[in-house]
């Protein structure tokens, strides 16, 4: 079946470096893509989203890039800080019956060393 996966399960970076977290998706019909951040002991928290008709969206220190040709999504975090240490999930969303239903990837653990 369709699935969302991540290339790297763990990413270690130094504080101040830029981080890039990648995600592959397989359903070309997905309408939306979202990145979530999950800190230890907490629920996933929305970071940024992008519609399927866009290829780039920027937020505060984060940028999401979407390459529909190769079905690839990435999250770039500028000037990574220790507080960015968490597990990052990508999710692809399909509209079903008027609601957006997400399928989550397995997650990438980002470790930021001070």
């Amino acid at each position, binding site marked *: 079946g369709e699935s969302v996966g991540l290339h790297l399960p763990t990413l270690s970076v130094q504080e101040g470096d830029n981080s890039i977290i990648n995600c592959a998706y397989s359903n070309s019909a997905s*309408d939306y893509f979202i990145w979530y951040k999950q800190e230890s002991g907490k629920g996933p928290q929305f970071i940024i989203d992008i519609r399927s008709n866009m290829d780039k969206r920027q937020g505060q220190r984060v940028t999401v890039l979407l390459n529909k040709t190769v079905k690839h999504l990435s999250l770039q975090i500028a000037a990574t800080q220790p507080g960015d240490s968490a597990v990052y999930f990508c999710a692809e969303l399909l509209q079903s019956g008027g609601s957006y239903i997400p399928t989550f990837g397995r997650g990438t653990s980002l470790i930021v060393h001070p």
Partner: protein
Amino acid sequence: DARVTQTPRHKVTEMGQEVTMRCQPILGHNTVFWYRQTMMQGLELLAYFRNRAPLDDSGMPKDRFSAEMPDATLATLKIQPSEPRDSAVYFCASGLVTGSVQYFGPGTRLTVT
């Protein structure tokens, strides 16, 4: 600020016992989702509701799991009887029908011995 709440935060129970987890969605949100998270399977969608009506619960083991929304401020997930393989963190999330973003609660960590 508005947030999804879940109770209990932790639950340890013996195999065969009934477990009920509760969720209060953000006021005004009209979709509610239940997820289960394990190291092996990641985040799995169990069931979701729109305007309190169950739309899809195909992700749940039907013989032991049930999800309901008795009113707009309460969603419940019940397991009866519980089994050790049900040990996981269960998340509730709410959102708007017109939106794509879901707001997650802090989760209920369930351990079945």
